[in-house]
């Protein structure tokens, strides 16, 4: 017995590839540029968005019939800001160390357009369960791209993964650096993320021709 119906499963599967929020819907680019210089930051951000989008979508979906359409964007903003503040405060009180790690992401989550985009495009017109699945699917799709970009940027920019040196020591010239390899400083500045995302889009569209728009 399948856990989810085929239609529901697609809500999770589609955003992972063929309807990816970053590479296809082009949402959440700002945070994809800002925090992918390190793999660890990418993972933390992906998990935070998973949490906020999953719950936020459900809340908006439950409220969808009573939200006046004129102020729906403000209402969405209030919901996501409230959620993030609640999480932030609770962590500060009970898991202070963790909250220190996450504090820099709080602002980035509230302004993440994936969250507003999914509230607007999906949760306002669908029931809570499907909205929840949509939230999980989209944040996973977002997370995958973040992790891929973070992997390449940290590896090529700093020669480390999760902060652990994998290519040798650039200062003492060991490992790959002994052969004349150098870290590419360009990879750790935000424009490099655009190039990596661009390459991902290129690879994705050349594998699936259906994604290419006609001009």
């Amino acid at each position, binding site marked *: 017995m399948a856990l989810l119906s085929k239609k529901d499963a697609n809500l999770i599967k589609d955003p992972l590839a063929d309807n990816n929020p970053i590479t296809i819907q082009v949402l959440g680019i700002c945070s994809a540029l800002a925090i992918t210089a390190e793999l660890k930051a990418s993972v933390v951000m992906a998990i935070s968005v998973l949490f906020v989008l999953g719950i936020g979508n459900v809340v908006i979906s439950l409220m969808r019939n009573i*939200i*006046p359409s004129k102020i729906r964007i403000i209402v969405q903003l209030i919901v996501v800001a409230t959620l993030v503040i609640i999480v932030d405060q609770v962590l500060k009180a009970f898991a202070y160390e963790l909250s220190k790690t996450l504090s*820099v992401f709080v602002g980035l989550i509230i302004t993440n357009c994936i969250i507003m985009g999914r509230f607007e495009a999906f949760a306002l017109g669908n029931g809570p369960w499907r909205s929840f699945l949509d939230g999980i699917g989209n944040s996973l799709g977002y997370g995958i791209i973040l992790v891929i970009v973070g992997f390449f940027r940290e590896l090529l920019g700093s020669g480390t993964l999760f902060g652990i040196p994998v290519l040798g020591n650039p200062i003492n010239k060991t490992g790959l650096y002994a052969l004349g390899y150098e870290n590419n400083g360009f990879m*750790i500045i935000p424009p490099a993320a655009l190039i990596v995302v661009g390459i991902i889009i290129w690879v994705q569209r050349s594998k699936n021709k259906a994604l290419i728009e006609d001009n």
Partner: protein
Amino acid sequence: MNTEKNSYTVIFAAVMVVIVGTILAFLSSSLSGKIDENKRLEKQQNILYAMGVNENEGEGSVSFVPTEKVAGEFSKYIKEQLIIEGDKITKDDQAYLIDLKKQATAAKNGEVRKLPLFIGDKDGKTFYIIPMRGKGLWDAIWGFVALDDQMVVQGVYFDHAGETPGLGANIKQRYFMDDFAGETILDGTKYAGIAVAKGNNDPLNEIKDDNEVDALAGATITGNGVSAMISESVNLYKDYLETIRVK
């Protein structure tokens, strides 16, 4: 129910604001005690970290004294807490709770600034620990610098409110903070501080009297903020430091 009517929109907005406001106010007031306590312990941990009382293991870790032990360790290692107000120096064991931001505002309004300073003692060596506060790229940065009586940095701790993860946020990484140890803040007799310098003429940080450490790539403005913070902060304490400096 017609959700398009103006009256409905206004009522909805008002009710929502009240509900959200109530939730947040309740949460904030019920958790603030615990949050303040966490912040207080963190300050003690940071001060101890700067003077080398920490649980760092290996090359990369930044580990504080555990929270349950920190109060005891703090009173064990910090011998004196001073408040410097102009020429007046008073002892106060709550000096570490002074809010540097409020003091900076007070100084701007013409009042005499209260400057907290912590004197630590570890293995017979005396440390003078100065709290610092400055601006990074996005938000505040702050920290502590521990000096000996020759004005040589013994250790630092930096933290930030919202620098970019992977770039400016790396000011609280070991490899950045460790570079400061051994550097002198004096240039001749001038309190020059330590600049976070690009140019990479000393990436191994072997020259200790150049008032420079190697910068973080991709974090120029945060780095400049750290340089400015150190030099501004030590200059506030210049008169006091001159009295204890061994020439």
